[in-house]
């Protein structure tokens, strides 16, 4: 009997880790339009084909290693996938270096805007760390709430990280391959944006409107963005200051060449970049590097 037990134990030791590696932890969970009113936890693979709403009293915890895949469905024909997660309650999405949480398209050939967004609107609490969000209209959108977005990757979206009227920390993230790396409308926001690597987007930082220089965007690498490293929207008339960032150079003339502001349109404010850093900020985030 003890011989059988030993063999069984050995088999379990070999098979269980393999099952984990091969994703045999269970079938994918499929969700259409869904309302979460209580405590809920996701793990494994979750396929979303609709709108998942975490209501005010609801709480969603997404465990490390979870894959959240959004099916492309564009019923209104606006060119943007309709699937999304809307959080009005609480969201805890804390992956780990070894097991980040992935929000991505379920399509075989994924494209930006295959799904709409991870949308925090008047959310009670939102802690986001070690996630990879890709192929969305917005990798994440945050409005009217307090949120921390740390050590994550936002890539191949229309907007990587987008916010307005918030109290937000965006730190230690890699933001690349988006149309807009960070897009924001300040509107009395308290934003602390630092330690991020924002490169190879079409536009690095897009200050759309209503910014009166309250967002503190500093100690980031904002380089090699295709069109402009920073740009002001048509209604951004106030100056915007982006102090102490790494722009790939310390020459103020060269830095300004990669800005779209008053130089191009008299009605806009000016982008100022005082005290540019002499070398890049060290970004230690070990996820989301291999495909850059």
């Amino acid at each position, binding site marked *: 009997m003890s011989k059988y037990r030993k063999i069984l134990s050995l088999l379990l030791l070999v098979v269980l880790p393999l099952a984990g590696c091969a994703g045999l932890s269970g079938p994918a969970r499929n969700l259409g339009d869904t309302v979460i009113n209580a405590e809920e936890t996701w793990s494994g693979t979750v396929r979303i084909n609709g709108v998942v709403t975490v209501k005010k009293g609801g709480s969603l915890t997404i465990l490390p290693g979870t894959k959240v895949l959004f099916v492309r469905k564009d019923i209104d024909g606006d060119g943007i996938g309709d699937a999304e997660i809307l959080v009005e309650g609480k969201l805890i999405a804390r992956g780990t270096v070894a097991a980040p949480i992935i929000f991505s398209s379920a399509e075989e050939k994924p494209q930006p805007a295959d799904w*709409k967004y991870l949308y925090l609107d008047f959310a009670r609490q939102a802690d986001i760390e070690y996630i990879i969000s890709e192929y969305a209209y917005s990798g994440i959108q945050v409005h009217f709430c307090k949120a921390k977005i740390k050590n994550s990757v936002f890539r191949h979206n229309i907007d990587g990280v987008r916010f307005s009227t918030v109290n937000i920390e965006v730190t230690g993230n890699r933001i690349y391959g988006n149309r807009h790396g960070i897009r924001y409308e300040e509107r009395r926001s308290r934003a602390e944006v630092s330690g991020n690597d924002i490169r190879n987007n079409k536009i690095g930082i897009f200050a759309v409107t209503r910014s009166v220089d309250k967002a503190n965007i500093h100690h980031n690498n904002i380089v090699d963005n295709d069109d402009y490293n920073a740009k002001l*929207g048509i209604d951004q008339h106030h100056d915007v200051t982006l102090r102490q960032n790494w722009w790939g150079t310390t020459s103020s003339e060269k830095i300004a060449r990669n800005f*779209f502001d008053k130089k*191009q349109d008299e009605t806009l404010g000016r982008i100022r970049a005082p005290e540019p850093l002499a070398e890049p900020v060290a970004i230690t985030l070990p996820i989301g590097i291999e495909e850059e």
Partner: protein
Amino acid sequence: MKMRITALILLGSLLMATAAIACVGKTLVVGTTGTVQQDLMAQMISLLIQERTGTTVKIVKVDSNMAAHDALLKADLDMYVEYTGVGQVNILKKNPIADSAELYKAVKATYNEELNLIWLKPFGFEAKKLAPAGVAAEAAPVVRKDTLKKFPALARLINKLGGRIDAVVIGELETAAKTGEIKKVAREFLRSNRLI
């Protein structure tokens, strides 16, 4: 009194939230009848809006100017490029007006008052082949009035193209567009004119 203040705060928050939601993910739709010139101008408007406001813009092909007009009235389109002569004679079924300034004034007024559609500034060129007999045919964007209300900066933005594209420029752009990628031609024009 306290209740009133609370109610006002709640209402304000709700309005702010609604405004934010309204600007999230709203896609504008620009029509084209599919000629090189129409495709070029649709791309130019689309890029200008997208690049300067961040709003997503979709270009939709329609069969004719009349089909574009109908789609605009039904809100299937937000805007397209029309020609004053076509608007006056083919769409409004009115008498031709030879003077281009008078013609523009007339179509603009009728579209605004009777159709809730707004003619923005003419680009600066005419499409003579499209002009019904006895009228000029200045090209200009026509936009739904409610679209302009939702996007207050839009008229000011699109009007930056007003008077910038004369007969020579549109000729050069069309030639380039026939042999190259239309979107690229439109983008280069906007970049070289420091519009994006």
